[in-house]
């Protein structure tokens, strides 16, 4: 019997952070910048196993070779599940390499999808089956159904244009909203502004994306934009989950997206959709974005204007409902956050 001690690795303490980075590097792993919490098992003073957590996603698992037979992963996973429950998060994902799939399946994780060499597994309460059941309540039979996945941070005239174009090519359009709350406009506000901005267009259903469409579990690179080769496999994972769960649950045969002239991550995502959706019998249609004064309308542009205090020309970019919100006391608070963030980035 071995006696190992489980301890937190403090990411805010430079020496501990560096030690963790060094440990992970031995296994060819990187410490992702979105990692919030990390725990380690120590044999005396020596670190022998680690596990990291970002939101409800467990990753960065590493166990020293000489300790592999002791099944330390189960101790680490148990501890993380317990900690998540304390935070009232009742499920967890594991984002790992294909070769470790069976290892996590033996710990009760269920394989839900893959992209490239990355696999995603989940365990806990309210998994993908509940997500599908929730979607099926909105399902439409006997109609040509399309879908568009949107973040709308915030809702612009460009989004409205995309929706109208998409709607002209199908009978029922599902707008699936990115639910992850890491955008400057919170999910509840983004959703409200979409609903208000499209209320005159019939046969549109607004659906919450949950953990399975562009979330920190399926597509972390979308929120921590970085040009690296992982973006491709993450995008493929996300699209595969759409093909496997979302599209059949909602009876979707077309997927729309705005063309992406600027952003690297989104353009990779569009390419992956083009390649994979068609193979699965789902039509992929890219719609050119709407321009205003010869510039593409984007939510980024809106945030930049807010940052610059240029509220007078906002009406060219957003519908009245969004503009009213931005000028409201609640909107002002978000404007302050935007200004604060962009100043830190030196973009304002």
């Amino acid at each position, binding site marked *: 019997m071995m006696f190992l001690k489980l301890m937190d690795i403090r990411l805010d303490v430079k020496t501990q952070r560096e030690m963790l980075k060094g440990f992970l590097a031995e296994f060819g792993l990187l410490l992702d910048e979105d990692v919030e919490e990390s725990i380690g098992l120590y044999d005396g003073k020596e670190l022998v196993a680690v596990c990291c957590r970002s939101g409800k996603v467990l990753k960065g698992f590493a166990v020293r070779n000489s300790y592999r037979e002791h*099944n330390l992963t*189960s*101790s680490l*996973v*148990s501890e993380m*599940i*317990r900690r998540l*429950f304390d935070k*009232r998060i*009742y499920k967890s994902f594991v984002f790992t390499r294909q070769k470790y799939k069976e290892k996590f399946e033996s*710990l*009760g994780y269920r394989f839900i999808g893959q992209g490239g060499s990355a696999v995603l597994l989940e365990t*806990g*309460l*309210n998994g993908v089956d509940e997500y599908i059941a929730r979607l099926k309540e909105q399902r439409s039979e006997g109609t040509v159904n399309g879908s568009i996945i949107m973040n709308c941070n915030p809702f612009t005239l460009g989004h409205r244009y995309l929706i109208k174009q998409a709607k002209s090519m199908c009978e029922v359009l599902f707008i699936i909203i990115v639910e992850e709350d890491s955008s400057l406009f919170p999910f509840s506000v983004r959703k409200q502004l979409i609903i208000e901005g499209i209320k005159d267009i019939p046969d549109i259903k607004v659906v919450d994306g949950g953990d399975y469409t562009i979330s920190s579990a399926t597509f972390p690179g979308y929120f921590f934009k970085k040009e690296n080769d992982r973006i491709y496999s993450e995008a493929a994972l996300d699209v595969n989950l759409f093909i496997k769960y979302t599209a059949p649950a909602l009876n979707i045969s077309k997927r729309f997206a705005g063309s992406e002239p600027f952003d690297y991550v989104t353009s990779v995502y569009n390419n992956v959709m083009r390649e994979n959706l068609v193979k699965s019998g789902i039509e992929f249609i890219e719609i050119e974005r709407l321009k205003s004064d010869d510039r593409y309308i984007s939510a980024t542009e809106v945030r930049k204007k807010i940052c610059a205090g240029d509220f007078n020309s906002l009406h060219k970019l957003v519908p009245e409902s969004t503009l009213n919100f931005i000028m409201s006391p609640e909107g002002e608070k978000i404007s302050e956050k935007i200004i604060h963030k962009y100043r830190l980035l030196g973009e304002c």
Partner: protein
Amino acid sequence: MKIMKEAMAGSLESSDCLIMVKPSEKLEIEIESIVQKRYGKQIRAAIEETLDEMGITSGYYKVQDKGAIDYCLRARVQTVTRRGCEEQ
């Protein structure tokens, strides 16, 4: 007693089990065990008996068994049930 909220007890260590519960209108017990083939029936019987003694008639139970002995299993069921029945 009635399961009012999500709760968990136990671990995935060898010879233990991890049980999660959440509110549900009917009683649902999902069991995954490394000894399912040999002891599946006994495990279910032990869980149902424990819940019966505690007067539990509803709730969703997800049990991941790593070869826990009967006493351990019953203790985990009792603990997770009490946790799930506590006030929010």
